[in-house]
């Protein structure tokens, strides 16, 4: 390799790399690059787990993330809520993260109220909101939901809400879905919710790319389905939309939109790793020759 080029590579200002990364994401967004997705086994398992819940059954959806991870997780949450509503399941929303409640509110507004206006608060869905305590919240809910949630997010006593009237503990739910970005999240739902009563309900999880590795040991025995990062969201969106079509890609379809920049950015990452290694090998050879 040319000595000057090698020296430039070794001393490359990292801001050039930043610029390349920025462009690799910005250009596909501006060009609206879209690619077909092919649902993998984990996304299919998640879809099947929701499909297996009998119509009208109560399900618990926990929003265990914040805006920092919403880019990856909001597409799954939106598709999941649309899927559950299309199957006429009763939904109870809650959050283990302080900012998760806002994400749940956003999903209720953009999915439930927009596409399923027949869903009534109190009988078809309830927003319980956030409670502090992390795994302590799950542990208490495993035996006593009303003790943990005395009121819903709006301050209404849960004892007066029809949907929660028969809910004593977590076994009242047929499915628990945790869309999670870390601690506390899907892992804790498996440990403290599913652990004491493994056959009472199914657990599915949506996870950020960073957290996936931690959840892999629980799939498929302790966690029936898992959505892996935005790729999982895109695959799940496809499956849901195929069976329950919706004509609003802004809401259900964000996962697929965000897969466009992934391709270019991933290729850039590979190119950067290769380039770094070529520079290393060239430096080593030059050093050896000297």
């Amino acid at each position, binding site marked *: 390799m040319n000595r000057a080029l090698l020296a430039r590579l070794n001393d490359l200002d990292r801001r050039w790399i930043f610029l390349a990364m920025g462009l690799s994401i910005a250009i596909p967004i501006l060009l609206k690059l879209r690619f077909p997705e092919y649902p993998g*086994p984990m996304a299919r398992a998640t879809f099947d787990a929701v499909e297996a819940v009998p119509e009208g059954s109560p399900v618990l959806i926990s929003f265990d993330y914040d805006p920092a991870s919403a880019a990856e997780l909001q597409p799954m949450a939106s598709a999941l809520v649309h899927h559950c509503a299309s199957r006429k399941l009763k939904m109870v929303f809650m959050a283990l993260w*302080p900012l998760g409640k806002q994400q749940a509110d956003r999903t209720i507004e953009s999915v439930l109220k927009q596409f399923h206006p027949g869903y009534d608060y109190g009988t078809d869905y309830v927003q319980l909101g956030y409670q502090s305590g992390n795994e302590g919240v799950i542990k208490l809910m495993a035996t006593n939901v009303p003790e943990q949630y005395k009121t819903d997010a709006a301050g209404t006593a849960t004892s007066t809400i029809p949907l929660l009237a028969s809910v004593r503990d977590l076994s009242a739910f047929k499915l628990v879905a945790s869309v999670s970005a870390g601690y506390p999240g899907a892992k804790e739902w498996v440990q403290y919710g599913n652990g004491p009563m493994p056959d009472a309900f199914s657990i599915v999880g949506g996870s950020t790319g960073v957290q996936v590795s931690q959840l892999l040991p629980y799939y498929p025995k302790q966690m029936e389905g898992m959505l892996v990062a935005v790729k999982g969201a895109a695959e799940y969106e496809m499956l849901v939309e195929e069976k329950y079509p919706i004509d609003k890609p802004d809401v259900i379809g964000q996962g697929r939109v965000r897969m466009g920049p992934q391709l270019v950015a991933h290729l850039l990452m590979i190119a950067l790793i290769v380039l770094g290694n070529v520079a290393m090998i060239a430096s080593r050879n030059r050093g050896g020759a000297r």
Partner: protein
Amino acid sequence: MLQRTVPIIILCASGAIMVLAYFVTAAVSWSETVNVWFNVLAAVAFVLGAGNLLKVNLEKISSQRPGWGYSAITLAAFFFMLVVGLFKVGAIPDSKYPGVRLAGNYETPASPYGWTYEYVFSPLTSTMFAMLAFYVASAAFRAFRAKNTESILLLATAFIILLAQTAAGMFLTGWIPEDSAFAFLRLDWMKVAITEHIQTAGMRAITIGIALGVAATSLRLILGVDKSYLPRGGGAA
């Protein structure tokens, strides 16, 4: 006594109740009560965190340490959010109880608290984490070196996952029939094999190791063997 013995008793008792509740049905209600206390304390911890932030920044401002102006901005932002949140400034009144001002909804973007969440907090925290994309790219160029078998394995796996997670995987190897003898050369096949078998096995072993460590540490704490949580130089019992 107060500084050492009482905390040990509290820890042992609360830990033992939580364990006992798994085995004795009668202890479930005790564990629920202790759990409620725990959850309330978790909420108080947020107040403690905010108090600590206040303390650190006020000290910085009063001693006019370098960059104290930023501490003032932090405190101004803190108090603004605190006041509009605690007093529900501009909250949308509850339709059933319009007379009870503090029952109003303060989290919609139509209220100052919700607006600040939507247009200040949310973009700031999202962008802060999004910055990591740039640093991952920089680290990939500077630190990912194929120096030995282990690093080659790591890099090769990363390449497969990076390609298979996008349309590139199907573009490069999607033409290989799924039911052929060479299906294992498909990138999507390799990705599933890596994540569901090799990566799962690796993480499962790590999980088992962590579980043993957690169980041992928990036992040491509950049995009073580990006292590292007690304040240093807290005096004799």
